[in-house]
């Protein structure tokens, strides 16, 4: 499952991400092991806005497609 598949209001845990992703993502707080929640999304789910580490970060769908997640229970 990827971040782009997360339904509105649901939480998940970020998994190990590929090295090609912008490091800024990490520096803004979105990193493996953190809990992430889809807070709101624009029409067609693009862009999407997530809460992670207490910050609201929005990103485009094509980036969210690259971030693997798992359900919080799997931890």
């Amino acid at each position, binding site marked *: 499952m990827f971040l782009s598949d997360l339904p509105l209001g649901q939480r998940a845990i970020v998994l190990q991400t590929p090295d090609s992703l912008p490091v*800024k993502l990490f520096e803004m707080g979105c990193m493996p092991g953190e809990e992430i929640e889809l807070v709101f999304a624009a029409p067609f789910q693009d862009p999407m806005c997530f809460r992670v580490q207490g910050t609201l*970060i929005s990103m485009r769908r094509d980036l969210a497609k690259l971030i693997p997640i798992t359900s919080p229970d799997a931890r």
Partner: protein
Amino acid sequence: MPDKKALRIALVGRPNTGKSSLFNRLTGLNQKVGNYPGITMERTTGLAKWAPGVLAEVIDLPGVYSLHASSTDEEVVMEALLQEAPEERIDRVIGLADGTNLKTCLFVFSQVLDLGLPAVLAVTMRDEMERRGMELKTEELAATLGCAVILVNTRTGEGLDALREAVLRAEPSGKLPFFQPGGLHLRWLAQVQEDQSMALPYRAWLWGLKEAQVGKSDRLQQPPPRARTDEAIQRYRQVNQWLRAFFVADPVKDRRWTARLDRVVVHPIWGSVILFGLLFLLFQGLFYGSEAPMNFIDDQLAALSTWLTDHLPSGFLAHLLSHGVVPGIAGVLMFIPQIALLFAFISLLEESGYMARVVFIMDRFMRPFGLSGKSVVPMVSGTACAIPAIMSTRNMENSRERFLAIAVTPLITCSARLPVYALLIGLVIPNSAWMGMNLRGVVLLGLYALGFVAALAGSALLHRWMPAKKTPAFLLEMPPYRWPQGRNVLTAVWNRTKSFVTEAGKIILAISIILWFLASFGPNRTPDFTQERAPLPIEESYIGYAGKAIEPVMAPLGFDWKVSVAVVSSFVAREVFVGTMATLYSVDDEDNTTIRAQMAREVNPRTGQPYFTLAVGVSLLLFYAFAMQCASTFAVVARETKSYRFAVIQFIVLGALAYGVAWIAYAMLV
């Protein structure tokens, strides 16, 4: 008096932490807006006396999430902090942290500390922390960080004295380092330190990773992968530890009204309704709100002009002042109401946190054009006037997007085109009904639509053609909603207006005087400045000759020499077209209907029919829709892009486009 060296203090922190509020508090209105060397990014500094004999120069650095460069913002901050030349070196750092969102703020601050700079942490949003039941054990945190931690309230000024004191006393932290590279990274770092003889590891780390990223230095060994990622993970682990130990939040009191507000504000339907409502308000405000002050300025300067004519002996000087200098000054002052209104509006959007939502809502729509939601503001304000619109692009962080927005904004139908459109539409479009609507109204609406379509299409084309350097990833923080602070709004308005008057204003005044000269002097006739009317007939002035000289060039567009002269002279401003036509047709009063009647009587000597046919009219309308016929726009573009070349190329390209479109339209209609 010898120039005493000021203590250079940099403000470093994440965006939306109240950085500009603190900056305004620390410096007052004594601010200087300049540029960073080599790039068009703005740099604001302010001087203030902090203690007897202590002058502080506060530097407001861009908001960043990390010191590593992902975009120009971080590059600027890193460059400033790594500076070693004595006159450029940063003496003290004030790190900013939003008390309600400490985690990501402490991340950047721990990087700053690792640079070994004397720093103080200012924790803002104190009032909100209390409201939300949050408590920070500042003394314990200070002991762990090895620097002072001060709670401040930028609304009331609470904590500012303590902050100033702490800054003056600050020393490098003794608790370093907060980040320790491991294994391969450490070996690479040791190599960089040795090669560059840099004593401080983190300085070498930042510098080395930046150099490797730019690929400038080939002596530098490539760093092992995941250097920045590992640093981020380690630092967050550290920060989380601190927060667990020193930060308490009461989950019951911590109710977020940001989340509740967002349910409406970014709602797929209501969000758009709110956004378009606000943009409509902006449009109305710029059009009607600025009308009264603009008329006032106009009246005062007209009165000044008359006074000068009456009280000065008639002659060269009186004419220069009343017809060259005063209109030039008017051309500068007239824009102030709109500029002030627009920047008050933008500043309210930014301060409240709504601007990030605008970008979010509009992103999908603006993406194909290479623009983001931020371009909506210049596009909409461009319908009033391109001058404030182009200035408003300053708030864009992405320089590529800013370039696109500046390039296409002059295509949007501004209010100066309206008199020209009104005159020409009244002349060549019949006053009949079309699908139940007045045909003239439909044409005017069509011209507005054409402006938007041309601007967006132009941007999309440029976006396609322009070599795309690595564009920073679209990662945008949605800040919590906050009440805007009046002080910050006023400061923004004041700084923008001041820089417009002192910088673009000079160019506008100069162009106005040059054009006055070209209209008042001619090669074959000595101007007579003693009479009431123009010093010489316009067709015998340099502008007149220029108009006649380009008549053959303009002939394919259907323009005769009179129209050509009017087109050339309206380079000052588009609406001058109407006045010039009036002069050329010897109409005394500048009433639209009278000029229109006179123009309607004009006969084409070749055909014996009325000269202003539908073909000529449409050709002229399209020419004015595309051409950059505005000296002030030219001046502002040159000033904002720091490049006359940009402005000249834009002028030529838009001129060529106008010519081409008008030509095709004329050829098809004639």
